């Protein structure tokens, strides 16, 4: 499915494991930006917005590298964004149970491939910046995406692909018989 920000209720139709292409403006935010937004307010219109867990490398107003950072670090500080209308969180590695519950009936978590900083940058254009005093990696950058390929990691119905994969992996591990070392 092709998605364009600002997002609406079309995201509620998505299921964990669906592949989507996202276009339009997204806002980067890591740990420091979340803390600042919580204290001082969200500097962009949060309604239907997408927040990208990313600390980009920017040189001369050009995005050089913008891979996803580990989303789980933002587990405890994402609720206020979802409460204010943010419809998609983007990052790598999945998020905790509490975030899956907060996204219920409201939004989705989209996964982008870890380490793919150059590929991401090739689909991006810089549009603006907030909280620049936080430094390059922690500032909130407004970035226009052109068809970034993502996977729905957590949907708005409680479906969590990461959780499903790891539950199955645990089961397979328990069933693993002890093989001969064969050294």
């Amino acid at each position, binding site marked *: 499915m092709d998605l364009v920000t600002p997002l609406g209720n079309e995201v509620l139709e998505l299921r964990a*494991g669906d*592949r989507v292409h996202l276009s339009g403006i997204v806002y980067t935010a890591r740990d420091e930006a979340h803390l600042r937004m919580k204290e001082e307010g969200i500097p962009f219109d949060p309604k239907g917005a997408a927040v990208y867990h990313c*600390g980009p*490398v920017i040189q001369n107003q050009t995005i*050089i*590298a*913008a*891979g996803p950072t*580990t989303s789980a670090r933002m587990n405890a500080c994402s609720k206020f964004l979802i409460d204010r209308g943010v419809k998609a969180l983007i990052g*790598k*590695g*999945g998020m905790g149970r509490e975030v899956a519950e907060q996204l219920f009936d409201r939004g989705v978590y989209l*996964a*982008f*491939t*870890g*380490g*793919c*900083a*150059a*590929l991401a*940058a*090739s689909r991006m254009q810089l549009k603006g910046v907030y909280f620049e005093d936080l430094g390059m990696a922690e500032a909130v950058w407004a970035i226009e995406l052109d068809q970034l*390929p993502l*996977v729905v*990691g957590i949907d708005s119905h409680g479906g969590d*692909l*990461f959780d*499903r*994969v*790891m539950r*199955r*992996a*645990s089961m*397979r*591990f328990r069933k*693993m018989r*002890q*093989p*001969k*070392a*064969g*050294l």
Partner: protein
Amino acid sequence: MPPDVLACLRCAVASERNEIARQELHNICANIEEAKRRQIPICQDTGVMVVYLTLPPEIPFSAQLSDAIAEGVARATVDVPLRPNVVDPIGRHNTGTNTGQGMPAIHVQPGDRMTVTIIPKGAGSENVSRIAMLLPSQQNEIIRFVAETMLLAGGKPCPPVVLGVGIGSTFDGVAALAKEALLQPIDEMDPFEQAICDAVNRLEIGPMGLGGTTTALAVKVKKADCHTASLPVAVNVQCWACRRATETIEVP
């Protein structure tokens, strides 16, 4: 990226059946191409530098040589550029140069010619690496221990991973062996390495923990003899960005 790693990634694209996993692998390959085209780092975590030297008899390992390596790392941090990743372990002050006390890590071995090998090691994968002091009677536990390491790691180390497994030596030595195992080309595995790799891939954690049969691209094992009463095992996890390079230096 070394050609053997690229070859393994291409093989994975060809053999993976899970559609989500295929997209992840396609993204990784497209990313490598894009980074090459624009001459920028493959991943924003450019790691900490781990250096392996072989030195011929006429070149001693001196403070001067050690300083020269540190200077090279500091210069590369500006020129490439590399992300400054080296900090004080408690104060967390960043040195800004990717050098510091004991950094870069330098390992020296005697050889016929002078060679310098660098592995830039990212933290996502380093943080989920493990060590076990198994008992001599627990040989059968080795494969389970490696598989368990990946089970605990899940998608955190950015799979598909390369696993360096050290077996034998001492508590400190086995960790070094595990990292040295990552110096070997990964497009060939012996039957034991293949058996470990198959066990890990049966977990179907897949690229980025999103499911699929490509969890490990390869497993490489390096062994050393050990005390008759121990069986040290270490697993050094490496992300798909399995970067390494070796340069031979002609000594006049």
